[in-house]
């Protein structure tokens, strides 16, 4: 007998799904702000070769980019308590997202900073701007504007990746989906709807970041 | 009987009317120089002659192959019309010889040995028979442009289009490319060229076309047209590009 799709038991749980989605978005928002902040710090240390921080950030970037997010999450949540560092599920999830995004955005922003044309800096120097002034006005803003699309994509990747935080029982969207399908035994339908929700959230975040970027990052530099 | 016949040709880029009814006949052996300011439509006109730009209305016939209102057998047309670009556009992953041999073997199905002979012949003609196995990045700009001319010639075109072919070259390399064009003209090749080299146009060309705002504004024998422009626009243009 052919399988009959039934989405009704999923939609009965719309409230649960939406609150899970809201939690995922909240995690992503905090992770994005702190992660990009960490990325700017790392990029400055790397681009200006501030010893010993440039080396430390170099090791950090490679360590994070060459290991899976899920393992980073497990290490933080299960491993760190052995060192006496204990945190809640959502704290571990946010920390893992910040550390992960921080590593990628360090590299992305560093590339943007290093692409600053030499003549721009020389022009600013000839106008007697100080080094921090040059960095803020002539280097960082245009660099962020240049790499904003790449940062946007990376934030979305981190949001999608946060689905695995359900494994440490962070009550985000996938956790809600797991709970629902364990109750209604409609795994396919439940995950199908959840996938669609993630897709919509990815579109939403892209739109939002494009708007934000145009208003606060690209807009003022062009 | 004209080799190239263009009648009532119109072209828009969006709302921008770039060719506003072009009528032009080119006889076999003609050397036509297209001049005009940037944006006058001269490059667009040249690029319509082998279908790189589509047209909205009008007729284009080259040696019996026709496009009506932009529709027709493009590949047949392109086999009769060769083109050389400002930026050379050699295929960087192929040697000079392979660049020249590609279209004869792939498009016409010419056997490899024969295509190789053709390639040697046309490379000799442009003075680069020793560069058969060189890759484009091993050649100077002037040499690359000569290979590009050889590549076009290998298809035995009826007409050769040249789109500002010396504009991307260092000044000292311009003359070697112009020498090749001059030789082709002397051999009776039909040439249509967009150029900024006014002296060359006057010396080698037998027909000058001045484009202005998407129309052929003035045309005629280069020597008389340059000496005695009939319109203020051309007089202005000639004065601007050629002081003295």
């Amino acid at each position, binding site marked *: 007998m052919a399988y009959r799709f039934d989405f009704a038991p999923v939609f009965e749980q719309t409230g649960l799904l939406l609150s899970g989605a809201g939690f995922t978005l909240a995690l992503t928002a905090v992770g994005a702000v702190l992660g990009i902040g960490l990325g700017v710090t790392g990029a400055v240390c790397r681009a200006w070769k501030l010893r010993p921080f440039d080396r430390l950030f170099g090791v950090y970037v490679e360590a994070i*980019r060459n*290991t899976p997010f899920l*393992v980073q999450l*497990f*290490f933080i949540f299960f491993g760190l*308590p052995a*060192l006496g560092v204990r945190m809640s599920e959502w704290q571990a999830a946010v920390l893992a997202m910040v550390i992960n995004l921080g590593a990628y955005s360090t590299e992305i922003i560093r590339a943007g900073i290093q692409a600053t044309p030499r003549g721009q800096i020389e022009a600013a120097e000839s106008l007697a701007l100080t080094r921090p002034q040059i960095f803020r006005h002539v280097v960082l803003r245009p660099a962020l504007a240049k790499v904003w699309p790449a940062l946007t994509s990376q934030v979305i990747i981190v949001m*999608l990746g946060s689905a*695995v935080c359900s494994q440490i029982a962070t009550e985000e969207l996938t956790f809600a989906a797991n709970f629902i399908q364990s109750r209604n035994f409609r795994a396919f339908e439940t995950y199908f709807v959840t996938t669609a929700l993630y897709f919509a959230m990815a579109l939403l975040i892209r739109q939002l970041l494009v708007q934000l970027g145009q208003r606060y990052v690209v807009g003022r530099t062009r | 009987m004209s080799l190239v016949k263009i009648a009532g040709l119109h072209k828009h880029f969006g709302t921008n009317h770039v060719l506003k009814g072009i009528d032009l006949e080119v006889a076999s052996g003609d050397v036509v120089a297209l001049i005009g300011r940037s944006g006058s439509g001269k490059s667009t006109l040249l690029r319509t002659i082998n279908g*790189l730009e589509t047209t909205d209305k009008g007729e284009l016939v080259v040696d019996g192959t026709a496009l009506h209102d932009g529709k027709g057998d493009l590949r047949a047309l392109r086999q009769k019309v060769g083109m050389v670009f400002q930026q050379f556009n050699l295929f960087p992953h192929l040697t000079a010889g392979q660049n020249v041999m590609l279209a004869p073997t792939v498009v016409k199905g010419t056997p490899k040995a024969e295509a190789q002979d053709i390639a040697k012949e046309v490379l000799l003609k442009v003075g680069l028979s020793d560069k058969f196995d060189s890759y484009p990045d091993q050649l100077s700009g002037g040499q690359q442009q000569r290979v590009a001319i050889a590549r076009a010639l290998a298809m035995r075109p009826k007409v050769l289009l040249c789109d500002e072919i010396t504009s991307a070259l260092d000044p000292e390399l311009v003359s070697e490319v112009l020498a090749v064009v001059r030789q082709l003209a002397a051999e009776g090749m039909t040439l249509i060229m967009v150029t900024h080299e006014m002296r060359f146009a006057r010396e080698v060309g037998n027909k000058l076309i001045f484009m202005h705002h998407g129309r052929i504004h003035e045309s005629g024998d280069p020597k008389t047209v340059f000496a005695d422009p009939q319109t203020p626009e051309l007089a202005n243009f000639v004065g601007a590009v050629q002081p003295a």
Partner: protein
Amino acid sequence: MLVQFSTWDIVRNLLDAGKWTLALSLIAFVLGGIVGLAILFARIADNRVLQAATKAYIEIFQGTPLLMQLFIVFFGLSLVGIDVSPWLAAAAGLTLFTSAYLAEIWRGCVEAVPKGQWEASATLALTYPQQMRHVILPQALRIAIAPTVGFSVQVVKGTAVTSIIGFAELTKTGSMLANATFEPFLVFGLVAAGYFALCYPLSLYAKSLERKFHVAR
């Protein structure tokens, strides 16, 4: 029934599981590459329907979590009556995921070939397939090598997610060992080191290829 694990036992078990991570990565990468090539050709074909369909395919895989893709493959295949092992679902899911990303990377490489190359070959009367075969793809291939190697790192890391549908690769084995030994710090540290040992050489190789390519240009 308490089993005592020495550090060596942990390492040995993880090395064993690492083979499955490696096998799954290779399969997903090779099959994903083949499917990806088909997607690429449809994506750049002279056909609007194919273009739109493959664009949607790519956007869906790039716009949803890998974990959801695995769940849908796992539960979807069992709905159509195929008895799915975690191994099969993991391989199928990762192959599709990889194909979408590789197709998009490669499309970017095709588009990176300068417009003049299209024009020059069109002028020589080459047909679209001839342009692709003789002019565009050979150049796109050279551009594609470095980012393709770079993406292989994402495939290896992606295999970790298959632990959640029960495939006993490195991460899954690590979780079980962490539970059994009560030494999560050591075990997950070793697991991370294992992924690093697989991924870091690939990252370095991708970077050196990229540098070589930029010098050659």
